[in-house]
């Protein structure tokens, strides 16, 4: 089933996707609290100058996370 999903770290600048699930428990709890819930739309708004970390817009706020962290978030791209 995971085959249909992409990692958040693979989403390109300016593109949006829907959060599906998380592959890391600690990260999951932290992200859930901050409003990154399954079903929410995330938009990749910026990459730091060396390509890492990334900034995402989700649920009225802008969050930053490292690429290694974003790799733990599985998303589906809307067509």
């Amino acid at each position, binding site marked *: 089933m995971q085959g249909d999903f992409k990692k958040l770290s693979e989403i390109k600048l300016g593109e949006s996707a829907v959060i599906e699930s998380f592959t890391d*428990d*600690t*990260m*999951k*709890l*932290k*992200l*859930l*609290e*901050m*409003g990154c*819930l*399954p079903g929410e739309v995330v938009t990749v*708004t*910026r990459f*730091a*100058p*060396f*390509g*890492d*970390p990334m*900034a995402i817009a989700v*649920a*009225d*706020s*802008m*969050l*930053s*996370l*490292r690429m290694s*962290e974003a790799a733990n978030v599985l998303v589906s791209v809307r067509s």
Partner: protein
Amino acid sequence: MIKRLKVSLVGNPNSGKSTLFNRLTGLNQKIANFPGVTVEKKTGSMTINSGDGFDYQIDITDLPGTYSLYPKTLEEQIPFQVLCDPTNESHPDVTVIIADGTNLKRSLFLCSQIVDLKSPAILVVNMMDQVTKSGVEINFIRLSKELGIPVIPMNARDGDGIDFLKKAIISKITVPENDFIDTALFAPEVVQSIRQSVKLNSNYVAFQIANNIDQISFFNDRQERRAQIKEILNRHGFDHSIMQASETLKRYEVISLLVKQVVKAKNAIPSKEKTFTKKLDNLLMHRFWGYFIFLAILFVIFQAVFAWAAWPMEMVDEAFTWMSIKVHDAIPEGVFNDLLVEGILAGLGGVVIFIPQIVLLFTFIAILEDTGYMARVSFMMDKLLRRFGLNGRSVIPLISGVACAVPAILSARTIASWKERLITILVTPLMSCSARLPVYALLISLVVPDHKYLGIIGLQGLVLFALYLIGFIAAMGSALLMKFLVKAKERSYFIMEIPVYRMPRWKNIGYTIVEKVRVFIFEAGKVIVAISVVLWVLSSSGPGAAFKDVKSQLETADPADTQLQNHLAAEKLRLSYAGITGRAIEPIIEPLGFDWKIGIALITSFAAREVFVGTMSTIYSVGGSDEDIATVREKMMAEKNDKTGLPQYNLAVGWSLMLFYAFAMQCMSTMAVVRRETGSWKWPLIQFAFMGVLAYISSFIIFRILS
């Protein structure tokens, strides 16, 4: 009649909590630490007249910002401890929750957790001006009914809504009747067993205890109870990460429905703040201009701290010289006079003189933080700093370290990963703090000629810049080394919110600075003055007949014969307790080019580095009353090496001393803070040894090369 009430303020970071706190308490604030941890505890008070004959004295505690009750960092432990543990000394009668109206969903998450604790609470929905501007309407009556607690719209910046809040605080608040969500459903047996075992207000408190059994101080005196509950958890296979995730999802599910009911976006206008933020970010986070602007800002800060502060510092210096002379003349000659002028006043002057620099530096740092810029800098620097085992958030401690390592190390608390936080704490003292500045200034003026290149760039200024650079390079190099030596306890992460840009709240900044200065004067000041007095005693008394003999010779000597006077004063110092100590360590420091007088300064500098200058003036002017640096400088310049007969302070000794001060851990306060932040003496001692070895080797090498 006066009634007392305890109130806690709690809310997400950037929700306007400090603004509200300042609004309520004004300057009636105190900063201390929560017991056992160095998390800042801001408390304040206000009086409310209820109009029916009662005066309410309200004690307010500002809890650190948090997104949920689940503690993830040291700071987030505090709201959890205070709110979930009814025996905590700060446990409130009323909890005031501050929500960011522009991000209601996330704010309601924390709010709903507090509602389920079933203790009196009030929700304040802040930033209503922006909510209204973006065309959004919130049905507060409905919201209040659904949550079961009073809800107050507010704009804390202008003070709108403050009076309603005050009224609400003193009115009888009933505890919410219904659970927002019933957490007992997730683990019925566990919640029930815990509630049978200890008396608690709600199912949710029991659920929280189950999740954080090791963190909650509630059971610190009742370990057998803790073991009993742990046994319950084991028996039922309670998995707290599954439990927390289920709770979070359930809460957001209910909140989403609630928000749909109470929030109406009539004609949603894209918020101006967000559009502006995006435009500004395109510039400030640009791959080239972003770094360029950051460097330019740093440059301005350095210029300000060193150039603008010079004038007020001179005034402070002159004021203290004037005072010393006045006091010296007003009180009869004698031990008391000497103690007052050479011990206490000299020590006080050494403290007060740093205030202009501290005020300037903290003003800049506070503005950068308050506007939201620091979060961007952390974002831009994370990848670079990560290579050195640090974290984007290490930027703030490293920059603050230029002022003082103590608050800098405290600001490392926002780094969630233990390893990155520890490395930041360990290397921050290598950044050249403001206490090193007087030492550098004195030594540079002694050994570096006042050349000018291209008419404006001074050699002395360049050397000063080089010393700061050396400190920074040493910090990064050490971090890299420690990255391979320190074991990671958990994976590091860098999930943080990037807030929209906001105008700095000048009042908040003002309060921050007043507090920092207050802490500096009373905390650091105490130590510095005490050391000055001790040093004065040690250098003006000594054992045995030889010291007494010289002392009486000095008292009866002809005041006009300055040569004899100076000779006897130096002899007296040599025989004093301080002199004996200095001579005892001379063999160790001799390879670095230091003599016993410098030895005394090295020992006393351990109290605080700037004591070096004071010590030098005490050593070279015991008997005189002039504390002016210029005269110390002249005396040091005239000082001859006992063995060679050449000037003692030559280029080699000067550089050796400067490098020693750049690297050595000569600060008790820093070590004390590192001990508290890391929980044991292990790390400060490692740090002390590491920095000491680094200092000794560098000084030795530079001394050999230059001499």
